[in-house]
């Protein structure tokens, strides 16, 4: 961590206004830092609030959500900026790729124009020039016959191609940070690998930082240097991907790893984590994983364990893990 990081999220919390009145807290005490060109994976089951995290950074939270804490990016706290200034950051300095390629593109606008629009809007290029650059971008994301395909409409493309258009759109202005919210979840496996390749090559080529949100540990392992494990809106563990995957400190991370389906020789049942992810309104007292944690002890339910740094570059939210590490 040399000098000030590109992005530093500190004590971020997001709560939602309920339709019947009242507030419900989703993200609690989320924090991490990211240097220029670095890659960070955010992994967690669905319903852990990881997508909300990426939207919070982009400043695109739904109307009913309010975020507190700080998100320092290139020296400015994004949460404090008004919408107009945020608009100058979005797309230009931070690009985002969404999960659902089928609905993420405007059905009534040609693919080329949707890519070119960012260029026209931020850099004031003429549509002619912007469209030409859009064709180049389509080439870069390896879409065949880019010139012709630029004039076609989204419904004439497969899911994989549309996701590549999404990537082209996000990196049109060469932003410093790319956020990919489960980019390959909706794609079938073969297309997944190809899309990830493109994303990785272009990221390297333009030296962009990347936050990859996913529930698939394989994708995280392949793409990200560091990883944060999320559960019930909290960060449970953080560290270099290799360490987190091989020496998980938090019992939840261990459970997560065990649950990855592997070919079993002994014909036994696949391992699962007992119980199911509790709704945010019915969290157990103390540690949020305490109701399902095999290594639970009485203290776990006393109070929510604080975020601790066992060694440089690692973080964990679990009193048992700290006790283990101390020995």
């Amino acid at each position: 961590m040399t000098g000030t990081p590109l992005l530093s999220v500190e004590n971020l919390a997001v709560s939602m206004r309920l339709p019947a009145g009242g507030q419900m807290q989703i993200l609690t005490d989320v924090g991490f830092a990211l240097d220029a060109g670095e890659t960070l994976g955010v992994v967690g089951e669905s319903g852990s609030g990881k997508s909300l995290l990426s939207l919070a950074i982009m400043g695109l939270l739904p109307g009913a959500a309010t975020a507190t804490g700080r998100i320092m990016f290139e020296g400015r706290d994004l949460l404090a900026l008004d919408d107009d200034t945020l608009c100058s950051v979005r797309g230009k300095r931070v690009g985002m790729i969404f999960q659902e390629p089928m609905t993420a593109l405007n059905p009534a606008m040609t693919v080329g124009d949707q890519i070119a629009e960012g260029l026209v809007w931020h850099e004031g290029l003429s549509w002619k020039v912007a469209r030409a650059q859009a064709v180049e971008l389509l080439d870069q994301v390896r879409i065949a016959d880019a010139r012709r395909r630029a004039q076609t409409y989204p419904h004439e493309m497969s899911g994989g191609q549309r996701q590549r258009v999404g990537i082209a759109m996000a990196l049109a202005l060469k932003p410093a940070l790319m956020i990919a919210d489960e980019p390959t979840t909706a794609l079938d496996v073969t297309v997944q690998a190809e899309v990830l390749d493109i994303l990785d090559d272009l990221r390297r080529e333009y030296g962009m930082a990347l936050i990859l949100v996913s529930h698939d540990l394989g994708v995280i392992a392949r793409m990200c240097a560091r990883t944060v494990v999320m559960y019930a809106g909290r960060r449970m563990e953080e560290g270099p991907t290799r360490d987190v995957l091989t020496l998980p400190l938090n019992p939840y991370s261990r459970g997560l790893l065990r649950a990855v389906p592997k070919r079993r020789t002994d014909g036994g049942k696949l391992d699962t984590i007992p119980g199911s992810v509790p709704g945010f309104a019915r969290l157990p007292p103390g540690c949020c994983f305490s109701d399902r944690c095999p290594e639970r002890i009485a203290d776990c339910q006393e109070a929510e364990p604080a975020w601790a740094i066992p060694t440089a570059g690692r973080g964990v939210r679990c009193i048992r893990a700290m006790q283990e590490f101390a020995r």
Partner: protein
Amino acid sequence: MIVLLLRRLSSLLLTLLAVSALIFIVMDVLPGDPAAIMLGTSASPDTLAALRHELGLDQPLIIRYALWLGGVVTGDLGNSYTYGVPVAGLIAERLAVTLPLALFAIVLSVAIAIPLGVASAARRNSAVDYAAAFVSQLFIAVPGFWVGLLLVLVFSVSLGWMPSGGFPGWHGGFGSSLGALLLPAIALALPQAGVLTRVTRSAVLEVLNDDFVRTARAKGLPRRAALWRHAVPNALVPVVTILGLQFTFLIAGAVLVENVFNLPGLGRLAFQALTQRDIIVMQDVVLFFAALVIIMNFIVDLSYLYLDPRLRGRSR
């Protein structure tokens, strides 16, 4: 896609034929003899017979229908019994009032409804939303001819700003003719604007939460730009459908407002033709309305292809 259009066209022509048969039979069954009406109460039987022959009313139904339809196909719509002039000319004359009035009303309706509808959708459940809902409900609830009445009373009688009615004719100067159409256009536009606002609001709401609007925001477009460049264009299909319906209604249904502003429009022509049992005019006017409705539906269908590329299938 061409096959689709051709099939659509043939079914429309079939409908037109059915309408022509229906109107012919209805007009024939209606009580009242045009000749007696034209010659008044003290006409003698032989003069009545002479007129009926002159008008060709004494021929059997089928032959009259064939003659009329033959004429329509070749563009000769026959002569009006009462006015004695070709019906085509009459309709054209009246269309020069009804068409601009309908267009004027549609423009006003769009000018009011689209911004109001989009604003109330963008700022849902806000003051704007409730105000727009109330105003549009009010416009729908108030009878159009009643609004026309009040407009005349306020703007022409007491304030004297506007002419009270009548139509100086386009040769009499573009400005004065448009002035004559302003109040009636407003009276026609308000109820339509009410309906259009509600349709626009629900159409935009439908699209506002779609992912591609969020993508546009992620590209750095401010809220307004994302709304107008991405959400609204995708909400136009239902809006255009309503506009199509409203346009044909404005042509066919404006008779009440035409009465209040005594504009020589198509509606009044039909109303007078019915009272005078000017059968040939009635048949031609109703057929004209039906053709207009059908053409309008066809245009709206075509616009769907334009507005929603997904319907176009492989475009290149």
